[in-house]
């Protein structure tokens, strides 16, 4: 009995001390992205960036709350995504979420966030339907959509002289969506798509498809899918002697693409809604802070958007407190919010449009097209 009383006394004393130390209320926000699997480089970069935003906010003496990031792994699989989204959304302590890199997952989870009323800010998925396919007030997006990306890609490629395309796309919502927009956009130019190849997202062998492409002799192979598949297609092109220019969408623009392919990655063209951080208004500070924070993995191109999404959520919580409905309303009304990636304005479907940037792989780095040696004429693309 005496022992029990003493234990209770100690416990009380400890809790009093911690209560004093944490005078601020702790508020949790969720992060969901692929932390394992082939797309984990992008997911981990996003998580680190969101974590950075949280740390910086916590270090700010003016902030009213102490924030905690709850990172969850969706493995880039819709079924897993729904599980973890439900876990986050049913935890009332999680006020809002920085959610999803993979479009196929993000589109599958919008209903979950809507049903449980958890505000979500998409940081990496670009399928338009995520915001435009519904009227859920909970779903926002800071990183633009594939409408922005395909528009820039089509104009640029046809303008550079690539008139005859073959599109290889994965058969998820992501790849199918991209194909549809490419077809719409190219119809307005003098270019044409001479063949499309749908491939399943875990397909291993592309020899039949690639030999068929070799036969069709297009000027360029445009790949609409994610990194693991892009790596396989590109490396098998080399094995089969398909010597054609290769271009991809933001889905392949990760450091793991460059690492996996080595010299074969050279001259791959890609388009991304994320501009190089150096060219963003707050990009220099982001890079410095990220280095200072000592993360082992790179931020990856969508990292700044994960940072912005987390920052936007915390700014809303600062304004109205940790209440999902109120936070949602503040997020809905976001107009001209000055973020490190430029001004964020949500349209009537809570989507923030961005200007896509063109990149090319040069010596194992993704270099902005305008800054590359391909523009200065030192190096040449194939098929022109």
């Amino acid at each position: 009995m005496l022992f029990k009383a003493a234990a209770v006394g100690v416990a009380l004393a400890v809790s009093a001390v911690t209560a004093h130390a944490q005078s601020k209320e702790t508020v949790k926000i969720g992060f969901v992205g692929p932390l394992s699997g082939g797309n984990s480089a992008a997911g981990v970069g996003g998580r680190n960036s969101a974590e950075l935003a949280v740390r910086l906010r916590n270090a700010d003496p003016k902030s009213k709350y102490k924030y905690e990031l709850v990172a969850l792994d969706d493995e880039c699989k819709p079924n897993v995504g729904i599980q973890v989204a439900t876990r986050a959304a049913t935890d009332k302590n999680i006020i809002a979420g920085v959610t999803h890199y993979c479009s196929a997952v993000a589109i599958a989870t919008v209903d979950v966030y809507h049903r449980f009323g958890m505000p979500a800010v998409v940081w990496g998925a670009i399928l338009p339907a995520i915001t435009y396919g519904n009227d859920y007030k909970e779903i926002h997006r800071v990183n633009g959509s594939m409408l922005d990306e395909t528009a820039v890609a089509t104009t640029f490629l046809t303008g550079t002289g690539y008139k005859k395309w073959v599109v290889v796309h994965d058969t998820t919502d992501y790849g199918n969506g991209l194909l549809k927009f490419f077809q719409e956009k190219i119809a307005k130019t003098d270019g044409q798509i001479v063949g499309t190849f749908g491939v399943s997202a875990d397909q291993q062998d592309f020899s039949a498809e690639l030999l068929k492409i070799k036969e069709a002799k297009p000027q360029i192979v445009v790949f609409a899918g994610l990194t693991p598949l892009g790596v396989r297609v590109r490396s098998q092109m080399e094995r089969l002697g398909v010597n054609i220019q290769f271009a991809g969408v933001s889905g392949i623009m990760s450091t793991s693409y460059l690492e996996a392919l080595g010299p074969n990655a050279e001259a791959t063209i890609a388009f991304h809604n994320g501009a190089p951080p150096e060219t963003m208004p707050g990009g220099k500070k982001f890079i410095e802070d990220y280095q200072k924070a000592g993360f082992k993995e790179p931020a990856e191109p969508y990292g700044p958007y994960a940072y912005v999404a987390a920052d936007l959520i915390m700014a809303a919580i600062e304004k109205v407190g940790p209440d999902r409905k109120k936070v949602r309303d503040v997020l809905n009304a976001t107009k001209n919010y000055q973020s490190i990636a430029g001004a964020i304005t949500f349209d009537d479907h809570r989507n923030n449009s961005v200007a896509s940037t063109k990149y090319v792989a040069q010596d194992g780095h993704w270099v902005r097209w305008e800054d590359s040696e391909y523009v200065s004429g030192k190096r040449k693309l194939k098929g022109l």
Partner: protein
Amino acid sequence: MAIFFEFVFNGAVLGIMYALVAVGFTLFFGVLDVIKFSHGDVLTLGAFSGLIAFLALQLVGLDLPFLGLIFVLLVACLVTGAIGAGIGQLFVIPMRNSSAFNILLMTLMIGTGIRESIRLFYPNGANPKAFPSLLPKTPIELGGVFLRLDSLILLALGFAVVFLTHWLIRHTKLGLAIRAVAQDGDTAQAMGIPFRRTVLATFALGSLLAGIAGVMHGIYYSEINFSVGLLLGIIGFSAAVVGGLGSIWGAIIGGFTFAALQTLWVVVFPDASGYRDVFAFAAIIIAMTIFPTGIIAERYSERV
């Protein structure tokens, strides 16, 4: 015309990998009438142990082109052979008198166990791993036909392994024992053939073929991942069934048939290439209704 040869050649590489997996299924079914569904995951294990062997070689600073490949293959064969015999000894033989359904389920679970263990215990096991090339990548152009030396060596290696297996079954004492057990286990035992040892040898042999297929797969695609054996296992099994479970030549024919179906679909309907596996499996279902006991039917051939 040149492109036609390229289709055939690359389809053949795919086919020989399927065939190696299918031969394993056929051997297991031949000797014990069991379907061992962990076979695909044993393949993955073979590929991963090959990768570890290569990394170990690098660690001690040895970078030998052909000897490296042989070492990697040896390690993969040893690991998969041991695992195959182990599964036979610990799970299949003790259960051989229970219904086939139980063994199928049990090996399915063992396979899941192997797969998940690789995912959880290999560092960053959920991510695809780059596989070393191990063979010279020299491009070869013959009358407009583009090949790469490593693809050619892999194809030759695959055929060599298949013929060696066939020779082993046909012309050695062990092969004779395997065939005897396959025909009638009880009688074979009565004639003095060590039943358990023969069955375990068969399991080791079938499994190390999967190990070789795993390493070939890794080299050919330059990467491996923890779930690579899943689809390969299903394809290998279908190939064995359509060829005629229990017949080695049937398994080989089945493997090449499956690869040919996949390639053919893409060649004929390039715009619907996403449906190639749907087509290939549908064709297998139809083939099974036409040849219920496989293309090489059992009554015309001895088992194994």
